[in-house]
């Protein structure tokens, strides 16, 4: 197994991410979403948001923050990145996230399943990350499934 069995159920040390307007603007532009609520505070307020809201998939940036080119969140548990494919991603949004928030994420390896694929055995790992804001409020849960071929 590429994944050490003792890693299952383990959590990694917490990581932090500061949400800022520039990153939100850049991210919305990169996915081609030109909704002005991601660019102008006036437009965001008019739409009922306190500040620029985060695009739905913006939380993907939290895990990559501060990492080098050949690092990725999937590598944090020692998964061999060159053999890792992204299988599933699911976000549960619990509370709004705005610029100025500092989020702390704790990543936990929930389970590992072995499956027989076309080209041999594959391992399927499910990782959950729970993000809490500076007030101790849980704001987001992210569940990722990665396939190690």
């Amino acid at each position, binding site marked *: 197994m590429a994944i050490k069995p003792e890693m299952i159920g383990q959590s990694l040390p917490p990581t932090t991410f500061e949400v800022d307007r520039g990153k939100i603007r850049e991210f919305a532009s990169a996915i*081609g979403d030109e909704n002005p609520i991601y660019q102008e505070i006036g437009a965001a307020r008019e739409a009922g948001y306190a500040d620029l809201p985060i695009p739905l998939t913006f939380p993907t940036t939290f895990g990559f923050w501060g990492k080098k080119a050949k690092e990725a969140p999937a590598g944090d548990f020692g998964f061999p990145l060159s053999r890792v494919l992204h*299988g599933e991603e699911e976000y549960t949004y619990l509370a709004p996230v705005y610029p100025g928030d500092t989020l702390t994420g704790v990543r936990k390896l929930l389970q590992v399943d072995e499956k027989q694929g076309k080209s041999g055995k594959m391992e399927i790992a499910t990782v959950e990350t729970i993000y809490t804001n500076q007030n101790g409020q849980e704001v987001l849960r992210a569940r990722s499934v990665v396939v190690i071929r």
Partner: protein
Amino acid sequence: MTLNLERGPVAAKVFYQDIEEGTEIPPLVNKPVNHTQLVKYAGASGDFNPLHTDPEVGVKVGLGGPIAHGMLIMGFLGHLISDYLGGPGALRKFGVRFQSMTRHGDVISCTGNITKNTSKTVSFLLKERLLPKTKGAILKPREILPQ
């Protein structure tokens, strides 16, 4: 540069009572995925895996060339659903399963249907032409009443 070929950037507003099961969400057709967009997305997301941005690496690992970030495609679907709902704030849960790879030149068109409208949640099944098939999106109805 606009990537949305069919609609303006202004979000539509939707009301819970108007959401009927089976209703189709207005489609979103993106411009063809190209190298520039993958580089831009790499910078914005922080995912600098060279599989997406270095054309030679995709060839070397046997994929026949660079592939798009799966999360970019999920981003397209997020764009679709948040435009439909008048912003991202109404969404409670959003999940996808990645099924195939997107390459340079692929046009990803996104659409979806309302699959369920209970008194508590509204569920969607979002689809795109090439990948990924979503598992669905759930939102709280009280949060989609932008009145």
